[in-house]
C-alpha cells in the first residue's frame, strides 16, 4: 500500500475551450472544436480540418516574463505553459518562489518540437548563417523544452521528466506522476502533455491515409468515433495538465480535491500477436486494462464510465471488443462510454491529458458528456455495446469511477482508473 494520490488542480488548452470554465461548458454542450483550415487546402492535403485551440499567443504575457516570451516560438511550449500554470493556480498556489520547490516534480510529455518554428533554423543553417540562430533554439528544439519552461517558471525541484509514447503520452505522464507520489518520491507532481500538430506532422499523417477526408465542407461532422461512416481521425492540438498530490499533503494545506487516481498501467503489446508499429495487440490492451483494475483494487462492475481512445478509425470496433473482453461486460451491462475526440479530434500526445481533465470534470460535476456525430452507430459496435450506453446527449448522473485509456503507435498502451474522492 502506498500513498493515496489526489487531483488538486487542472488546466486545459483544448480545441473547444481554453481554461476549465470554457472547456466544461463545451463538453457539457457538445461543442465542436474542429475547424476548416484554408491553408491545408492550399497545401493539397486530403484532410483539411483540425482541432485547433483558439489560442491567443499574447495571453502568454499573463504567465511568463516578456524576456522569456521574446524569442519563444514553440507553439507546443505555449500550450503546455498555459495548461500547466493554470492547473497550478487552480490548485491554489502562487507561481513565484525564491527557493526551489523540492517536494514538487513534473512529468510532461510531447511528441516533437514545433517543426514550423524549426524550419527557420533549417533555412538559416542551409544558408550558412548558423551564427545568427541565437540562444533560444536549443531550449525549444529539445524534447524536454515544454517541461523545462514549466519547471523553470515554477521552480520545481523534484524529478523533472519528459515522456513520449505517441498517443499514450498524456495518460502515461499522469500515471508516472501518480507512481512517484504513491511510492513517496515526491509529494506533488505537475503532470500532463502538449501537442502542436504543425503542417509537417499533419502532412505525414495525411499521407498515411488515416485522416477523415470526406467532411472538409462540414468540419463539425468530421470526427465520428464509433460511427458507421467513421473514416479517419482529425488531428488536434492543445495541452492538458493536472496537479497530483499525496492525499495527506493536500489535506494539510486544505487543498480542493477534484478526484483520486486509484491506479493504472502502461505496457506494450510488443508489436507481436497482431500488434504492429501502428496497430494494437489486443492481448496487450486487455492486459493493460486488467492490470489497471488490479492496481486500483477494484472490480470491473464498479466502472461507471469509459473514456475511450476511439479515434474514428477502423480500430474503434476492436477497441470496444477489447474493453468488453477485459471487463467481461457487454450489451446493457457495459459501462457508459464516450470519446472526447468526437468534439476535438485526436490531440495525439495531448489526447490523454485533455481527456483525463474531461474525465475528472465528469466525476466532479456528475455528468457523462455526449458523443457527437453518432447518428449512425456502427452495428458491429452496437452488437457489443447497447446503443444507450453510448450517449449522444449529456446525461446528468453520478460518476464514481472512470477508466481512461489511450493506445499509441509503437503498440504502447496506458490506462488510468480515476475515482470520486471519498
Amino acid at each position, binding site marked *: 500500500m502506498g500513498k493515496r494520490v489526489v487531483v488538486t488542480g487542472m488546466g486545459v488548452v483544448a480545441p473547444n475551450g481554453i481554461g476549465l470554465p470554457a472547456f466544461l461548458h463545451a463538453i457539457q454542450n457538445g461543442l465542436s472544436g474542429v475547424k476548416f483550415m484554408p491553408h491545408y487546402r492550399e497545401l493539397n492535403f486530403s484532410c483539411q480540418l483540425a482541432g485547433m485551440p483558439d489560442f491567443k499567443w499574447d495571453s502568454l504575457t499573463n504567465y511568463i*516574463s*516578456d*524576456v522569456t516570451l*521574446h*524569442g519563444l516560438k514553440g507553439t507546443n511550449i505555449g500550450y503546455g505553459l498555459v495548461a500547466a500554470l493554470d492547473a497550478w493556480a487552480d490548485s491554489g498556489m502562487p507561481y513565484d518562489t525564491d527557493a526551489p520547490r523540492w517536494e514538487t516534480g513534473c512529468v510532461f510529455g510531447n511528441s516533437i518540437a514545433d517543426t514550423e518554428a524549426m524550419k527557420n533554423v533549417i533555412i538559416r543553417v542551409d544558408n550558412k548563417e548558423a*551564427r*545568427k540562430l*541565437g*540562444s*533560444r533554439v536549443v531550449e525549444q528544439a529539445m524534447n524536454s523544452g515544454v517541461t523545462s519552461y514549466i519547471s523553470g517558471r515554477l521552480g520545481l525541484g523534484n524529478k523533472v521528466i519528459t515522456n513520449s509514447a505517441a498517443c499514450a503520452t498524456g495518460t502515461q505522464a499522469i500515471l508516472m506522476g501518480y507512481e512517484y507520489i504513491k511510492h513517496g518520491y515526491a509529494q506533488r507532481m505537475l503532470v500532463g502533455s502538449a501537442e502542436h500538430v504543425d503542417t509537417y506532422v499533419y502532412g505525414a499523417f495525411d499521407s498515411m491515409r488515416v485522416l477523415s477526408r470526406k467532411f472538409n465542407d462540414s468540419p463539425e461532422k468530421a470526427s465520428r468515433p464509433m460511427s458507421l461512416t467513421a473514416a479517419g481521425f482529425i488531428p488536434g492540438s492543445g495541452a492538458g495538465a493536472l496537479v497530483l498530490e499525496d492525499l495527506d499533503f493536500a489535506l494539510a494545506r486544505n487543498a480542493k480535491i477534484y478526484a483520486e487516481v486509484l491506479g493504472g498501467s502502461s505496457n506494450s503489446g510488443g508489436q507481436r500477436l497482431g500488434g504492429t508499429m501502428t496497430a494494437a495487440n489486443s492481448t496487450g490492451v486487455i492486459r493493460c486494462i486488467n492490470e489497471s483494475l488490479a492496481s486500483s483494487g477494484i472490480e470491473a462492475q464498479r466502472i461507471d464510465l469509459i473514456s475511450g481512445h476511439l479515434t474514428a478509425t477502423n480500430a474503434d470496433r476492436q477497441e470496444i471488443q477489447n474493453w468488453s473482453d477485459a471487463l467481461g461486460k457487454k450489451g446493457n451491462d457495459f459501462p457508459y462510454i464516450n470519446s472526447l475526440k468526437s468534439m476535438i479530434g485526436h490531440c495525439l500526445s495531448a489526447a490523454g491529458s485533455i481527456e483525463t481533465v474531461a474525465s475528472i470534470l465528469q466525476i466532479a460535476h456528475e455528468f457523462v458528456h455526449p458523443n457527437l456525430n453518432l447518428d449512425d452507430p456502427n452495428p458491429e459496435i452496437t452488437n457489443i455495446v447497447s446503443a444507450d450506453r453510448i450517449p449522444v446527449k449529456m446525461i446528468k448522473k453520478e460518476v464514481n469511477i472512470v477508466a481512461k485509456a489511450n493506445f499509441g503507435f509503437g503498440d504502447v498502451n496506458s490506462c488510468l482508473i480515476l475515482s470520486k474522492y471519498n
Partner: protein
Amino acid sequence: MTRQEILTELKKVIAPYTTNKEMLADINEDTDLIRDLKINSANLVDIIIDAEAKYDIEIDYDAADKMMNVGTCIDVISERLK
C-alpha cells in the same frame, strides 16, 4: 554616430532581454549587462546578433567577448561603424 547616439539605440536592442526596465532607462557606460540589467548570460548572444542586424555590421567572436558592459558595447559597435 556619437557614443550618445549609439547608447540611445543600444537601449532599444537590449530592451527585450532585461526585466529591469527601470535600470534600463538610466543606463550609462558603466552599466554591466549581466550584473546590473540581470540579463541571462546566454542572451548576450542574442543582443550581439540583434546589434549586427541593426547596424549592419559583423561582430566576431573575440569582439563579442568584450561586450560585457554598455561602454564596451559602444566601443565595439563604433569601431565597426567607422
